[in-house]
């Protein structure tokens, strides 16, 4: 009877979602390789969600690869480490992928510097208290490498009254084109498992599930080879569907639970961490090192040598394009994946901790621009309603957004539950920029709330 119920309930995935062309074949089979240092690295002080880091260096100062160069400004912040040995040139406003220029440290790399990290202070998590682990994780400067760049140690300190019993390691990588997480799982399974154990210890969790999609079964096998079958850590593959990699969708797929609206995963006893972040933690933690490089999938038809590269944080995208052969016909660079990534305005924009992909599209963009140029009224086809993983009503939201009725969108149609996955815009046959409308509506509402708070205080 119990099994029958389980059979009837759609499990192993979430409902709705879309199946965009995966396009992972460009890079999925290519091992992770290193890129050389760029002559100059640009290190924004705000690469993460939360308060910007505070600089510890001054122009002209020499720094060693791995040395902290900025400290955390409060709990909701992380430090920054020098990705290369060199001299601090200056600290000034520089363009970033997000758009506005932000204060950044410019590091002039000494030519001929080796990529070895000399910074090392052995540390053993098995003998450490959970509190000490959280502090140590903050010191690594680790943030969610999946794109949100949310400080990892904050997730390790759930609110009072929340107990995390299960850690979910998110290796879905549902964005088309990107293969970063895939390669990390294949190549660094031991780091990944160590990182998982550190997270479990810090949270006091009893078990952990490494979740990935069915298009990465080789990664499942690679991890399973390092795991005892009856241990607290298991690997599970769920059906390939976008946006399976959203933590709410993963919680639904792996555990069958929904994270209540407006709450952290810890409210239902879950902690969700990106697989690349976890592997990075497992690699850095025993040596007390900080995040100085990350794996980036550089891909797309506009790149001559697509692949998965270990890129020092702060490497300008222009340098990467020059190294990997830019075919020169493209005029659209996307930082991240095609579904949620942003297009980059300048070649000086650096790769930051949250950027897992660099996508160079050629003809496809022209095609998309032609599609962008034509739009029709909403024909109520309900494709967006059938696609929205949050089960919202994008059709209605879109009509309201068109009339600037933002408060109604928030109050009656739960706009704030939208996490901007873009499924609605993807499927819309009328070409209505739905998710784009919602972003504007959300930021307008946030600004208004901030104004009201300021007026009240």
């Amino acid at each position, binding site marked *: 009877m119990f099994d029958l119920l389980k059979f009837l309930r759609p499990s192993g995935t979430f409902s709705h979602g879309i199946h965009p062309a995966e396009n992972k074949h460009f890079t999925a089979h290519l091992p992770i390789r290193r890129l050389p240092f760029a002559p100059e690295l640009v290190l924004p002080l705000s690469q993460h969600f939360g308060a910007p880091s505070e600089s510890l260096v001054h122009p002209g100062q020499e720094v060693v690869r791995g040395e902290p160069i900025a400290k955390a400004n409060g709990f909701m912040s992380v430090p920054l480490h020098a990705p290369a040995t060199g001299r601090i040139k200056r600290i000034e406003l520089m363009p970033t992928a997000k758009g506005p220029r932000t204060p950044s440290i410019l590091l002039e790399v000494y030519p001929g510097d080796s990529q070895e990290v000399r910074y090392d202070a052995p540390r053993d998590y098995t003998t450490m208290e959970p509190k000490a682990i959280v502090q140590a994780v903050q010191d690594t400067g680790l943030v969610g490498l999946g794109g949100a760049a949310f400080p990892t140690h904050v997730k390790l300190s759930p609110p009072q009254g929340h107990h995390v019993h299960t850690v979910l390691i998110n290796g879905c990588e549902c964005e088309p084109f990107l293969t970063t997480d895939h390669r990390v799982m294949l190549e660094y399974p031991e780091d990944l498992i160590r990182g998982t154990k550190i997270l479990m210890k810090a949270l006091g969790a009893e078990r952990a599930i490494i979740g990935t999609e069915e298009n990465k079964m080789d990664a499942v096998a690679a991890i399973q080879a390092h795991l005892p079958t009856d241990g607290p850590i298991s690997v599970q593959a769920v059906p390939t569907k976008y946006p399976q990699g959203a933590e709410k969708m993963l919680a639904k797929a792996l555990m069958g639970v929904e994270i209540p609206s407006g709450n952290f995963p810890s409210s239902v006893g879950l902690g969700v961490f990106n697989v690349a972040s976890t592997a990075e933690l497992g690699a850095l933690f025993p040596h007390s090192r900080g995040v100085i490089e990350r794996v980036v999938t550089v891909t797309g038809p506009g790149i001559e040598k697509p692949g998965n590269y270990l890129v020092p944080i702060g490497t300008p995208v222009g340098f990467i394009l020059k190294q990997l052969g830019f075919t020169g016909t493209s005029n659209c660079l*996307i930082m991240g994946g*095609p579904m949620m990534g*942003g297009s980059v305005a300048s070649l000086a924009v650096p790769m930051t901790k949250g950027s897992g992909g660099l996508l160079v599209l050629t003809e496809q963009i022209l095609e998309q621009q032609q599609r962008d140029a034509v739009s*029709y009224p909403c024909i109520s086809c*309900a494709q967006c309603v059938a696609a929205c993983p949050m089960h*919202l*009503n994008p059709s209605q939201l879109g009509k309201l957004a068109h009339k600037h009725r933002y408060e109604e969108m928030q109050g009656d149609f739960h706009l704030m539950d939208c996490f901007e996955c873009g499924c609605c815009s993807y499927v*819309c*046959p009328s070409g209505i920029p739905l998710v784009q409308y919602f972003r504007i509506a959300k930021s307008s509402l946030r600004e208004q709330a901030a104004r009201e708070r300021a007026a009240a205080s």
Partner: protein
Amino acid sequence: MSTTGHHVVLRTSPHLRETPTVDVIMRNVVYALLPIVAFSIYQFGISVLALVLVCVGTCIAVEHLVCRWSHRPTTVNDWSVTITGLLLALTLPPGFPLWMAMVASVAGVGLGKLFFGGLGYNVMNPALIGRAFAQAAFTAPMTTWVPILAPDRFTSFIPSTFTLPFLRPESIQPWLEVVAPDGFSGATPLALMKFEQVPTDSLQLLLGSTAGSAGETSALLILLCGAYLVYRRMMEVRVTISVLVVAALTTLVFYLIDGDKYPGPLFMLCSGGLMLGAVFMATDMVASPVTPLGVWIYGGLIGFITIIIRLFGGLSEGIMYAILLANACSPLISSLTQPRRYGAPKKKGAA
């Protein structure tokens, strides 16, 4: 990109869209309707061809001219008005006077669609508005049926086709005596059933060898054409399923109560315009609800009302008014059946 001298393209995500656009969907609906039109021309001859051309032509012309007069770019290239024209023609009797078809087209596209703001804003299905207008204005020609497979159908028109504007069509009785010397009852299977309790063989209905409106004769062909759209994921199949299922169940209830007086489900499903309505008109995206539950309710409502009108109303056919009524209800249905969002708090008490 600055290295190449091109303009940098800045876009917001999602950067790739691969699903069909409105014009592609609408064009495919037109493709799906063409076999039905062809079959109808085969059955009724060049009069239907003329009827289709006049309806489609008038509909396109009205939309184009209204767009021009209101200084908007023309919207005829989204193909939706072509569908309206085809559907309207298919719901009219084969020998319907062409000038009346023009009036119905103007009413359908003008009042039913453009009056509300064009594609996406119409409350009801424009083709059915046109047909409802014709039904009210030209009652007699709307119920004048002709036999199928008339011997001279490809060489001469049905006499009523070329009625002069603003004149009543002359009687087709002399023509009928020539083309159907064995006698033609002049009634559709539904009317025969309703008013004379004469049943028609279901196989005939399925294959379409009966009298009726231009495009409502072969249920099987309509289902096949609908299947193409479902295969291309361009049709809301849930509406069709719920219309047919609820219509069949409602019929079954009455059939079980009194099998002599009421017809069986298969007859009901295959006769009249139910199949064409369920597959091509109830599924009109614009006028149907967007919520998953709402779609089922909407379809069920159409199926139920159709059968009630057919069995107890003054008319022999009910699909048109059923769809128009459900169209009017669809905003209400949509707002009452908002989907339960992910992570919504549990309902408190009975609220």
